[in-house]
């Protein structure tokens, strides 16, 4: 019984840092493909707006 408990605690101790590392990696790389494309579209649109304004004659 005690040995089983020690085994479970050992497994939790081993897996917790791995799980934390995995979660951190997921957070960093976080974006889905859809989010990446949405970000790219927003950037393109913002660039288009800036350049359209700056191609004009206004000071």
């Amino acid at each position, binding site marked *: 019984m005690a040995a089983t408990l020690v085994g479970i605690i050992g497994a939790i101790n081993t897996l917790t840092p791995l799980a934390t590392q995995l979660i951190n990696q997921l957070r960093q790389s976080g*974006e889905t*493909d859809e989010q*990446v*494309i949405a*970000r*790219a*579209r927003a*950037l*393109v649109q*913002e*660039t*288009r707006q*800036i*350049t*359209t304004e*700056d*191609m*004009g*004659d206004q*000071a």
Partner: protein
Amino acid sequence: MTTPIRLARRQLATLMMVALVTYLGSGFACSSSDVSKVKKKVADAAAILNTAAKSNRSLYQSGVYGVVGSPEAISKRQKVATVIHQANEYLSLAVERAANLQASDLEVGKSDIVKLLQQATGVLNSLNIDNENIRLVLQSEVTAINAAVTLTLAIKGA
């Protein structure tokens, strides 16, 4: 008349054929992570061009192109904005191509995207302006987009 043994053999043969085709197909298929990498490179290029557009405005507003509001300064800002605008339209096409990119057409899609990014850098390279600051900004943007092109080409299907 088909005997149960023959039927079982036929079903087994069909099953093995399906498994074989699936196995061979997986060897040639590209993983979804390769598609994601290409999409991220296109988004990187969009961010680079966005920075160029903002830099152009900043250089104008800070008087680097000449006195703010003067015809000379406005003309320089317009000239730079025009090439960035044209390059951005190529990039817009690249983004839409990337949006539809699938693992099954990665090589063709990658080639389409690289061509569009190269057209964008070609437009940026065509600018002839007598201002060292914006020339440096645009050169660095071209270098960064070229790096995105190189990295995109380096992405190989699994």
